[in-house]
């Protein structure tokens, strides 16, 4: 039998088809931003119960309508906010916090559990400034938690892993390691440096 070669399929129009699809996806594509700062709003409580908090345990941050920052009644640049917040949170005034490295200044916060950051903004404050301040305050907590994570992690077998990395690893399905143990470490750090950020309306 004579072998007859199969006729070649003309693939010239393949490029056209692919271009058509390509242009469709180019036009419909929006690379959505799906990252952000997570926050939890306080529930509206029926009972108006005033909790008395010592003034020294509150770190007041006021952002006025002209985007000027007033921290503890003093003007401050946003770039200095992180360091100031870290200093306040890590102060350990009543010396009950064994893992803090603060100045132990009795006129500043007692311990990280009692320290509260109070953020107040005005209606005219720009959203960009507000996010910058939120970012710096979250960063302040992360600085402390990272430091603590490096200490705790080396004891628990998670070497060279800061808090942000721990959280990332915990969510990562490909992470090889003891996740239940990691969760315990994360929870402990969260408990040691609780994020107490209150917003005044």
């Amino acid at each position: 039998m004579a072998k007859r070669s199969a006729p070649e399929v003309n693939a010239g129009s393949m490029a056209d088809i692919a271009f058509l699809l390509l242009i469709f996806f180019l036009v419909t594509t929006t690379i959505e931003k799906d990252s952000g700062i997570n926050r939890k709003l306080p529930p509206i409580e029926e009972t108006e119960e005033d909790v008395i908090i010592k003034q020294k345990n509150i770190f007041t941050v006021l952002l006025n309508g002209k985007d000027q920052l007033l921290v503890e009644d003093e003007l401050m640049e946003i770039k200095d906010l992180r360091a100031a917040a870290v200093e306040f949170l890590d102060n350990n005034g009543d010396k009950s916090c064994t893992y803090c490295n603060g100045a132990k200044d009795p006129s500043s916060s007692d311990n990280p559990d009692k320290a509260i950051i109070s953020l107040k903004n005005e209606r005219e404050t720009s959203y960009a400034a507000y996010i910058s301040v939120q970012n710096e305050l979250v960063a302040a907590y992360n600085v402390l938690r990272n430091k603590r994570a490096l200490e705790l992690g080396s004891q628990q077998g998670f070497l060279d892993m800061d808090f942000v990395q721990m959280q990332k690893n915990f969510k990562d399905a490909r992470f090889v390691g003891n996740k239940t143990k990691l969760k315990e470490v994360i929870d402990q750090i969260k408990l040691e440096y609780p994020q107490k950020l209150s917003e005044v309306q």
Partner: protein
Amino acid sequence: MSKFKKKTDGGIPAISTASLPDIVFMLLFFFMVATVMRENSLKIKNALPVANQVEKLDKKNPVSYIYMGKPSAGYEKFGTESRIQLNDQFAELSEVGAFISAERAALREELIPFLTVALKVDREANMGIVSDVKQELRKVNALKINYTTGVGDAMTNMN
């Protein structure tokens, strides 16, 4: 002249376009993978601010989006003040509660407590409208919120 002509007559081989489909397919696959179909067409300016302490929005849980910003070109009749956009249209503050209820109604019951509200707010908007929306969200007990931001240096927001 004819001397040169003769040479070209010998024929420059045509450039092979056989690999063109491959290149185009490569691009096509990239865009197919990176594409998220637009859920809402925006009628407002929505340049998000940037921050560097961001967490990824957990897509496993349901997310509702609330947009805020100045009406963009073509929608000037809605004013120059920042407005709220829900789904595909401008909305009043009082509609936020109803919107969240509608979003919840579309969810399976066990997922309702995990509903996150992502606030996509233009960087030029002011906090007044954002605070109002937050207050509305508190009223309907939608307490998990996310300020959606780009990734970058937060100090650049102010310029």
